């Protein structure tokens, strides 16, 4: 191979490489590496800080600079209407009080709370499998989701979150709501299994109304969120592992017409403890700041 040909090949290769690099750097809407906010050095510093405080990073971090906005939501009414319509057609008995509406039919009690929470209680429960706890997670999910579909209790845009094991032989499956590929962590569906039977389904679903692009702002980085959490929690006496850190939305339950919810970094410690860091303010989100809820 002569030198001229080698140069030609190298030129083509470098043109390709530069196009790739330029694409990742300057194409605003594509690629996770677009607009890098977190440098390798910052990740190293964050990891060192975590380790000093007995926390250990066991997941990858989103390194892009991102912007987000508030999402306006209201309690979802469609699912409730759909279920109620079916109950009325089936002549289920109904009792109404100040804060809830209760339907009863054979083997089921359904409570619609004014806050938007729907509880479906099965008595004696719907049989799933002998000793469900021994099944593979995938199998349990598959059976549960099939049942939810049959009972028309499966909302759209839903994502499986995690499975919680309750002593002695209970399981709770956690699902959350998704909107435009971002989780809404407070839109939740929980399925309670006791031994071999599905006992209860709890649904709190939100209706995304509008995003506020005029209030679009840059959010804090994942490393900043982690630093803020450790600052908030303080050093740990036992090793704690950061299993997940994802961006989504969070909202507490309000007895309100509609409300805005902020973007948050959800940090999962040891696979079971969830913390939400406001992605705008960097504060640990808490559920006790609304004045009327104060003692």
């Amino acid at each position, binding site marked *: 191979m002569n030198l001229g040909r080698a140069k030609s090949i190298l030129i083509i290769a470098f043109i390709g490489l530069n196009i790739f690099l330029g694409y990742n750097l300057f194409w605003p809407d594509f690629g996770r590496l677009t607009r890098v906010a977190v440098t390798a050095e910052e990740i190293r510093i964050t990891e060192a800080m975590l380790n000093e405080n007995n926390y250990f990073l066991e997941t990858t971090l989103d390194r892009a600079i991102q912007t987000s906005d508030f999402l306006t939501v209201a309690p979802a009414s469609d699912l409730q209407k759909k279920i109620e319509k079916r109950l009325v057609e089936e002549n289920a008995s109904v009792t109404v009080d100040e804060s809830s509406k209760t339907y009863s039919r054979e083997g089921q009690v359904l409570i619609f709370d004014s806050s938007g929470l729907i509880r479906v209680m099965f008595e004696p429960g719907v049989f799933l499998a002998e000793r469900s706890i021994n099944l593979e997670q995938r199998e349990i999910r598959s059976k549960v989701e099939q049942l939810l579909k049959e009972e028309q209790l499966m909302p759209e845009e839903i994502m499986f979150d995690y499975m919680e094991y309750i002593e002695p032989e209970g399981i709770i499956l956690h699902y959350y709501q998704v909107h435009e590929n971002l989780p809404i962590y407070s839109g939740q569906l929980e399925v309670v299994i006791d031994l071999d039977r599905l006992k209860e389904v709890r649904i709190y679903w939100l209706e995304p109304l509008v995003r506020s692009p005029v209030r679009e702002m*840059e959010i804090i980085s994942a490393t900043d969120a982690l630093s803020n959490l450790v600052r908030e929690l303080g050093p740990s006496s036992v090793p704690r592992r950061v299993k997940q850190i994802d961006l989504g939305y969070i909202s507490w339950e309000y007895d309100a017409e509609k409300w805005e919810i902020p973007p948050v970094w959800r940090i999962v410690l040891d696979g079971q403890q969830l913390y939400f860091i406001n992605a705008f303010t960097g504060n640990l989100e808490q559920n006790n700041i*609304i004045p009327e809820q104060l003692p």
Partner: protein
Amino acid sequence: MIIERIKSIVLLVLVSLSLLLTYQLWYGQKPTHLIVEEEFERVVVEKPRPLVEVITPAYIVLRTEIGLNVLKESDPGFYLLWKTLSQQLQSLTEEFIVEENIPGEGLTNLLTVYLQPALPVGSDLPWLPGIPSAMIGQIELFSLNELTWLALADSEDDTKTYLLLPPEKAVELTDLIAEISAEDRIVYALLSTDKLNGLAERELNLENSIYLPQEPVYMDYLILRSETLDRDLLLRTFFIDYKLARIIEEKDGGLIYTDGERGLRLTNVGLEYSYPRLETGQTTISYPDALENSSSLISYHGGWPVGLRLEGLDMIRRGLAVSYQANWRTYHEGYPLYINKPTRAIFNDRGLIHYTRTLFVVENEVTDNEERLPVAEWSIALQAALDYFDAVNPGNQSGLRLEEMELGYVLTRSANLIQAEPVWVFQINGLQFFLKAADLDLLSREELL
């Protein structure tokens, strides 16, 4: 040959460019349009009131030839009289203190000023600078022949300090008292234990000095409207960057702003703010400094509404946390306005923990279509109050304490109107309740706005 040279240059440029792009990608570069400028906007708010304007008396009692006149906040003459007396106290020093007792006989009491919260006096304070620090709960003005004294009663041990007024100051005060007394005013009398027990036919103890009208009183229903405040400015006083606060629209029309750490709730009659994170703080500031802080808080967060009076300032302890709690109440023509959440601030060295402020102003008095409301006579009202107390506390017939009895207004909602209804306000054995001033029907707490 030339082509090869061009190739070499192009290759060199491409290698350099790839190195540069790799560096940018690896170490990061914030696009300039995303660099958010930190905004520290200057918030222009109402100027805080000086300490001398923070405390006003609970009430001032004037003695006239035909009886007593009681002046309260927003009552004509009240401010003028208190301002004059306050200015005199600011100019008097220890040289005016009378060491020996003043004559007991023949003294005429011209006025009594009840101070709640107590008035701090002494060194480094505007009132009576130079004398040892004290907290004054009551001021009386006495005269005998050509001499006039001020008697200052300590709020804690009731010990009295006498000050001999210079003649010109004495004349200034007595002339003003005569001028105010000459106005057409309702005559009051001090309720005595004997009178009370004779009326109630049971043992009833008086906890405070209670003055009651001795002639017919007429009051108006008041129509109120929401106070208009600059919402953006108000939000800026609570949140460093209120754009970070999300909005919650409540079913009753209320609005909540919260950034996840602090919350502000706005309704058409009030606002409520809380910042629970600060609850664990301490407070190291003195009582006078706390008074000034409380004034600054009102000025900063919405300003001073008409007729707002500081009713109390207390240090409160919850576990290891220590804070001050300041309570205000709005007055209209000398009558207090009661609402479920009156203006109140809880603060410590870390900042404002909890704050409520009323957001209403009196629009007009309902006198066009209706006659002014004749108020039930005090003795009948007291009997009705005791009947109600007996009904809710059966068997509690002895050891009753009458702690509060006065006329006032209670805010209620009628259709879409916010109105203030005239009431008799009672507090017996710690139980506060309201009887409608005309027919003495009970007004339940649920009816209060």
